[in-house]
């Protein structure tokens, strides 16, 4: 089923995972590479000789877990992002999982992210222990995550926590939240002018400097239209708030 779903099966994994005893000893590379393709950088990058020389470049890699010390060089060298390093000796409760991560923004060390399984489903909260991004890694940074020990063979990727929630303010002047905005769109207010008029979003002192873009993005996502094809709201004078007394001529700047 790997060919159809992209997700390794238990039979596949049985061949790739080291023994419990080896795992307990410390960091070790786990190569989840199950398809014959012409590719060998894992072998060429391993300075310890833990990965066996390929007889045929189409072979899948074979690793000697006793030689491997989990240095992680092969992880950033694998073009298929098929290798992780797992360290079950980290603590009684947690294991470290070192993954290749080629998205921006990179997570921040010490922050929390969502651990994902091989299908991309969220499975736990994971702490970012280390972010390694050297020149030699050629833009394949390594992220070390601390995950619950029982999930060391489950967590294989991460995503940032959702930055937005229903309570996130979209319009700070008039205090329209994302939840309220989505509800208005659901009710059929599907242009920014309608949303402005019904909710006052964008009508406050900043005149939509922040929320205009955010509302447009949300409308684009909800309607499937491109932002460039959607009507924009009117920009009205005086653009920047000015005191009535100043306009009336009672006050002058330098």
């Amino acid at each position: 089923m790997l060919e159809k779903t992209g997700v390794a099966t238990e039979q596949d994994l049985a061949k790739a995972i080291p023994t419990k005893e080896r795992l307990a000893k410390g960091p070790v590379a786990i190569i989840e590479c199950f398809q014959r393709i012409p590719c060998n950088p894992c072998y060429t990058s391993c300075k310890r000789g833990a990965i066996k020389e390929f007889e045929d470049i189409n072979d899948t890699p074979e690793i000697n877990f006793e030689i491997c010390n989990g240095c992680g060089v092969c992880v950033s060298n694998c073009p298929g992002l098929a290798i992780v390093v797992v360290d079950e000796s980290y603590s009684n409760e947690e294991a470290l999982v070192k993954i290749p991560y080629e998205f921006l923004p990179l997570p921040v060390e010490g922050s929390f992210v969502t651990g994902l399984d091989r299908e991309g489903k969220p499975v736990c909260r994971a702490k970012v222990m280390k972010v390694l991004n050297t020149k030699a890694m050629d833009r394949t940074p390594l992220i070390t995550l601390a995950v619950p020990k029982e999930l060391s063979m489950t967590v294989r990727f991460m995503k940032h926590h959702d930055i937005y929630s229903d309570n996130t303010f979209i319009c700070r002047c008039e205090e329209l939240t994302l939840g309220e905005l989505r509800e208005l769109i659901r009710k059929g207010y599907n242009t920014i002018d309608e949303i402005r008029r019904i909710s006052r979003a964008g009508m406050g002192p900043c005149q939509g400097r922040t929320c205009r873009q955010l509302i447009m993005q949300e409308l684009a996502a909800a309607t499937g239209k491109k932002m460039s094809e959607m009507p924009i709201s009117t920009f009205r004078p005086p653009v920047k708030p000015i005191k009535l007394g100043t306009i009336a001529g009672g006050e002058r700047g330098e």
Partner: protein
Amino acid sequence: MNNTASVVIIGGGISGCSIAYNLALKGVKDVIVIEKEYLTSGSTGRCGAGVRMQWGTELNCRLAKYSIEFYEKANEVLQYDGDIEFKQGGYLIVASTEKEDTQFKKNIALQNSLGIPSVYLSPKEAKEIIPHMDETKIISATFCPKDGHLNPFLATQAYADAAVRLGVKFMKYTTVTGIKVENGKVTGVQTNKGFISTPVVVNAAGGQSKLIGGMVDVDIPVYAERHQILVTEPVNPIQNPMFMSFSLNIYCQQTPHGSFIMGRGDANEPRDLRVTSSWHFLEEMAQSCCELLPLLKDLRVVRQWAGLYCMSPDRQPIYGKADQVEGFYMATGYSGHGFMFGPVTGVVMAETILGEKPSLPIDKLGLDRFEKDELLFEPSVV
């Protein structure tokens, strides 16, 4: 789209939505409202949204009183799931000339005779109601506590939501390009999204209503005049009533939301359907405001905009049918008070279309009054 309707209403402002709701309430099926952009995108959404019973002609007093009494209970009657934000803080209308003072005394007598609780005030009494006003600029004032302000977007939406529940169809972002007339009768409306056959068309197109009249060769003697408004940042409540003066050319109120909305008229404003803004307005408005309500000088203006008054020769609405074209009805020419007349417009227009006797005597507000030269001039308009 529906290609037949019993009534097509052109215009998705307060008038169009109120007419649609009242027709559906009376059991009319297949009512369609056509709106060029979105609901309230025309004059309704651009208006100052103040409502007052203090008028100078009996008919206007009665039309306004009927509407305000409806707005008082609109949330419940229309079963609106929001709030139209109706606040009855009153209108304080000040006189600065002897002529105006004389007119106000007449107005109060008329208003009181119709059950409108307005009172005549000295400058000192007026200052008790709006303490930050410069009372030395005025001779007298009138005050009616039942007058007030509401949110025009939400009020229109309340009508539209209720109309939809009764089966009315709304076509937003649809432009009427022509009206078909055969043998002197309306037979349909051409839009950019197709043709709708209908025996009845209601012109509730506000500033664009003259154009719509032209589509059936009915000359409606109205013109669109630009009026401008500004709004300030919101602050804590400091001014309960609307402050208004015809001679000093200002209206200024604080909305329940906290912002101040103010506007003025200008005879030199363009009459070409333009809704752009001018610096000229901003300057004159700020000067009037700082002079009469000096406390407000530190408030920041966040936005100005413009809308169209649909001016009629006697500054009164035009209600009813066109004699030349069967099935063509008008609700237009409000001269700046269409929003406050919204509730009564819906009722009397629905009655007229169904051939019933209107709840209020609007027969004097027909298009034929201009030919007969029976104008009902309203003295109290900004």
